[in-house]
């Protein structure tokens, strides 16, 4: 399959729900949304599935495509892979075993915490950092929205992104192997279900950027699972001892958790997509020096702030911190038979230039600057583009008109009115004295 056919985005528009307001276009970090004919439109090549628009849309017109529970029936053995953030969602849960037991009640044969995958990735990352083979700083590849952001925007930083698979992928591989050994079933009879805090992870499963194929079969949203579990979680009488993860793995849910687990001093931990962009801009301009590692998470607060979570991210953060306090610190086991590296090279996928022909692109850029000068530069968004600059770009790309700007339109109407008034005052000779 070609890259274009494979393309999948979890973030999508629920058209009937969209009022055509311009909130999402202002917050999209890659300027990937326009409002046209009264509805938002996502420009596929620009979307990194960060979920910022889902969070911002007050009409809930931005949705994440996730899978439904019905796919569970296809497998003889079903494993739930809860993201570390999942365990912070329940106010009634005093430990992780309760939450994991609850998951089994939903029909899963086993649970495998992604936190355990995080412990393994932590060990591998320590190796990478100390190997000296990579140009410092290494940027974490755990957040798929950030990896995509680098691929569309930061050519010079691509070599800094740690070429490692994610905790989710590592956990899926470990869970599948355990299940095979335990049950003797074939791979196709074992279903691996990731319980995701965000749409970026769904995209990472269905359209991986640096893997041929994901180890995960399906993605259920934390929100959907929460709905099924919230009412029954405090009624569980027999709690199974299922949690096997240690403190540092679990704390990957919170911002700073991944970096802290490495036990190094020289790191930057940045969360929130706008903050991530600021740091990456500085890094690209070589303004950041003396740093070995950068944890960069698209969501504010880290994965607990994912757009498919239920609990307020500060509350979930506190809960995870408290519960994990009592856990021992476990070290992930690196096995020779586990490949934790990417198996596909990520390609630089910049936004298309103004034109494929350099000369024409330059003429368009010059025209674009002239257009910007003539626009009010209020960035009001009424034209459907996030800023006057973006409108000017859309105009030279042939995708918008100058009169899409309501101020420009008003100018034209006013000119026309003046002209009409002038015409009206002109009387034929037969009527003039």
């Amino acid at each position: 399959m070609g890259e274009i056919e494979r393309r999948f985005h979890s973030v999508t528009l629920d058209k009937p729900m969209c009022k055509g307001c311009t909130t999402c276009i202002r917050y999209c970090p890659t300027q990937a949304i326009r409002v046209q004919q009264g509805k938002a439109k996502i420009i596929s090549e620009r979307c990194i599935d960060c979920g910022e628009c889902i969070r911002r849309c007050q009409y809930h017109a931005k949705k994440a495509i996730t899978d439904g529970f019905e796919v569970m029936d296809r497998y003889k053995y079903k494993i739930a892979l809860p993201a570390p953030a999942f365990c912070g969602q329940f106010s009634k849960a005093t430990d992780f075993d309760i939450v994991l037991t609850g998951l089994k009640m939903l029909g899963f044969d086993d649970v495998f915490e992604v936190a355990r995958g995080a412990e393994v990735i932590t060990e591998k990352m320590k190796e990478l950092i100390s190997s000296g083979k990579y140009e410092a700083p290494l940027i974490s590849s755990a957040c798929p929205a950030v990896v995509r952001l680098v691929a569309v925007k930061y050519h010079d930083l691509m070599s800094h992104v740690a070429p490692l698979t994610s905790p989710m992928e590592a956990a899926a591989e470990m869970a599948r192997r355990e299940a095979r050994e335990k049950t003797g079933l074939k791979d196709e009879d074992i279903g691996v279900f990731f319980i995701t805090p965000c749409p970026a992870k769904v995209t990472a499963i269905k359209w991986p950027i640096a893997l041929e194929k994901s180890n995960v079969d399906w993605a259920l949203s934390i929100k959907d699972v929460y709905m099924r579990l919230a009412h029954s979680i405090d009624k569980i009488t027999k709690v199974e001892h299922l949690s096997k993860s240690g403190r540092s793995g679990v704390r990957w849910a919170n911002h700073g958790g991944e970096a802290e687990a490495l036990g190094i001093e020289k790191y930057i931990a940045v969360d929130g997509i706008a903050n991530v962009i600021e740091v990456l801009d500085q890094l690209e301009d070589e303004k950041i020096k003396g740093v070995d590692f950068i944890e960069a998470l698209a969501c504010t607060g880290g994965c607990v702030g994912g757009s498919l979570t239920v609990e307020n991210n500060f509350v979930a953060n506190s809960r995870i911190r408290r519960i994990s306090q009592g856990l021992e610190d476990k070290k992930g086991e690196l096995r020779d038979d586990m490949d934790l590296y990417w198996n596909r090279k990520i390609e630089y996928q910049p936004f298309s230039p103004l034109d494929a022909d350099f000369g024409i692109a330059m003429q368009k850029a010059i025209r674009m600057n002239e257009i910007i000068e003539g626009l009010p530069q209020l960035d009001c968004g009424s034209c459907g583009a996030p800023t006057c600059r973006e409108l000017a770009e859309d105009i030279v790309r042939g995708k918008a008109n100058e009169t899409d700007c309501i101020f420009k339109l008003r100018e034209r109407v006013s000119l026309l009115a003046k002209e009409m008034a002038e015409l009206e005052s002109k009387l034929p000779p037969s009527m003039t004295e």
Partner: protein
Amino acid sequence: MSEPLMKLHYNVDGTDFTVAGEASGAVKKVLKQLGISPDVIRKVAIAMYECEINMVIHANGGVIDVEISPDKIRMIHKDVGPGIPDIDKAMTEGFSTASQQVRELGFGAGMGLPNMKKYTDEMRIDTELGVGTTVDMTVYIKQ
């Protein structure tokens, strides 16, 4: 038809550290839209940024004119600062006349001019003590 020439003009405020880098950032954006290769963009961005910082640290700001033509990018940085007494010395790696205060901010490592030279294909400095300095740099676009 004459060769297209794109002219960009920026004022650099010499009183505000936080705005240093805005001009090079804006130019970078334009070059990306033109589809210019990443390594050319990188050279331009770094050379321009170093020069912008110098204008803020040493010369109380100034103006930058950027000309983009199909085969090259020319950046002319003009200030009315104190001028450079000894250009050869200023071109030495590690040499800096930046104040302690500026060094504490992480600047003044003495790599400004050497980096500008390193990342550009042509560089010309016109300076006169008490009058000002013009740094004229060009990066070629290999098509």
